[in-house]
């Protein structure tokens, strides 16, 4: 299977992050075409739509369609924001684009911004990403020196200012409107929608937020053509996707592979199961997505439709593998503790509900569970889902509902006996 065809295509080169390497791969050629008027903004949108690129940040919204929501000819400042917050448990992919292929991200941002009429773009990285920040700053300097970013680029009168910034630790910054609040120097509390960022975004101006992987895919799509990209994947899921495979596999790692690759091939790339144990369950798209029993995953393919058909989603591509020694009660408690810590606190169902869920799970783990707690967990999750300002509510509810749907016996056993069915006394 061919790997590293799109966002990771520089990785096998000698100095993957350098300007020269990127130029050698025909880098910045699409940007120059746009600048010289050999390609129109509407061509970009059409190509991205035809390529079937869907947002790689988790929600899977069609990228071309999102770009068309902004009226580039409308007067006034507009912004592009690259979401490099990468904080979803299980997800480790965007950071390598910034470390080893930053120029492609810069070109992708320039193309997207120009297409939407935005003259300023922010790349917001999570607070811990100082290495990535420095790599992006270095690349930006090179691009500016080559006259490809800045004011009056190559004498065309076109401006694009790219600005790298870095946060200070908060998962919720990854929610796009929380990110806008954070850039405005506030607490990262998601905004009520509508209005959507395309109408009222950063500093109240029309704004588009895209994930790092989405934006870094754009130059390759335009350079090699939408058909080439689309054909890498399946009919409904164009292109490639980066999967970070973690947990109980022999060689955890990050793999950029065609959409539609069977899960068992991906598992093989990751060295197979750790200690050759059985595959009990997989969370295929970061901890916010629904868990799927191993048996089912081993027959599934990694695509939007493939994951939908097994009751989950591709999400951020964070594939978390659990072997048959995993206690599902402990695993869920760990997932929920994350959400309890990270709730921004503005919606009561989310703030209180995550706390109740975690308390309830802690009680079960302490041997103080009651068989009724299992239904109570599902009930609390149901009262969070759909009743909050942002999709964090679903991110909490889905793990609870799916863990109990598939592994109810383990939860009931723990409540009844006070110890783990898997681990024993």
């Amino acid at each position: 299977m061919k790997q590293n065809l799109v966002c990771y295509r520089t990785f096998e080169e000698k100095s993957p992050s350098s300007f020269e390497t990127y130029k050698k791969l025909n880098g910045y050629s699409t940007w120059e075409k746009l600048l010289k008027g050999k390609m129109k903004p509407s061509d970009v949108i059409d190509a991205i739509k035809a390529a079937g690129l869907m947002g790689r940040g988790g929600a899977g919204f069609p990228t071309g369609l999102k770009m068309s929501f902004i009226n580039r000819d409308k007067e006034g400042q507009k912004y592009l924001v690259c979401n490099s917050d990468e904080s979803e448990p299980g997800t480790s992919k965007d950071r390598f684009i910034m470390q080893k292929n930053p120029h492609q991200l810069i070109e992708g941002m320039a193309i997207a911004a120009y297409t939407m009429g935005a003259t300023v773009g922010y790349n917001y990285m999570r607070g811990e990403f100082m290495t990535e920040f420095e790599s992006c700053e270095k690349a930006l300097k090179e691009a500016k020196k080559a006259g490809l970013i800045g004011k009056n680029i190559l004498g065309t009168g076109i401006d694009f200012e790219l600005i790298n910034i870095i946060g200070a630790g908060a998962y919720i910054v990854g929610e796009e409107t929380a990110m806008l609040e954070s850039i405005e120097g506030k607490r990262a509390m998601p905004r009520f929608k509508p209005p959507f960022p395309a109408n009222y975004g950063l500093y109240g101006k029309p704004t588009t937020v895209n994930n790092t992987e989405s934006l870094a895919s754009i130059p390759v799509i335009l350079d090699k053509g939408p058909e080439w990209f689309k054909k890498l994947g399946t009919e409904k899921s164009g292109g490639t996707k980066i999967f970070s495979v973690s947990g109980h596999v022999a060689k955890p790692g990050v793999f950029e592979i065609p959409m539609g690759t069977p899960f068992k091939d991906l598992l093989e790339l990751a060295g197979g199961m750790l200690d050759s144990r059985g595959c009990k369950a997989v969370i295929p798209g970061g901890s916010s997505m629904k868990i799927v029993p191993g048996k089912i995953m081993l027959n599934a393919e990694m695509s939007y439709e493939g994951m939908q058909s097994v009751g989950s989603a591709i999400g951020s591509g964070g594939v978390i593998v659990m072997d048959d020694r995993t206690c599902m009660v402990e695993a869920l408690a760990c997932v929920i503790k994350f959400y309890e810590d990270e709730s921004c606190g503005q919606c009561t169902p989310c703030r209180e509900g995550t706390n109740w869920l975690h308390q309830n799970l802690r009680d079960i783990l302490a041997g103080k569970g009651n068989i009724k707690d299992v239904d109570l967990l599902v009930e609390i999750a149901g009262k969070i889902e759909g009743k909050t300002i942002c999709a964090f509510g679903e991110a909490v509810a889905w793990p609870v509902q799916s863990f109990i749907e598939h592994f109810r016996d383990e939860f009931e056993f723990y409540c009844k006996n006070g110890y783990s069915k898997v681990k024993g006394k």
Partner: protein
Amino acid sequence: MNNKREFDSSVTKKIDTWKKKFPKEKPESSIIMSLRFIQDHYGWLSDKHLDMLADYLDLAPIRVYEVASFYSMYHRKPVGKYVLGICGSISCMLRGSEPLLHHLETKLDIKLGDTTKDGLFTLKEVECLASCTKAPAMVVNGTQYVEDLTPESLDKLVDNLRQGEQT
């Protein structure tokens, strides 16, 4: 701490440079990074620092306080010279982060959240660091990643940091 109500010039220089990343009329956008610069220089964020930053950026103090209390990388109390943040999220948990945390508690003879008596180490549990495929993972002082942790590699790290202090 001295009682000067002025930041060191190395700090204000960084703040002034960072401010240029945002529109002129939006000084509040630089609060988040300014707090990091201050913390990197002074070790932690006292109320005095927050008031001083509000003054410096000409903002109401609440604007700075609400940011300082929201983001997890800020220390609102003094911490050790090395803050060890072990990831406790799911991928790291599956690869044994919990026993590692206990190992460190024993080695440093402190509980989670505490600082060693010599002021060298503070032990924290943090959430997913995006190092899930190199689990278990940790960060030292917020941004230095240490991955694929084992009890032995942790011992070595702590011993090396301790030794570095003595020489």
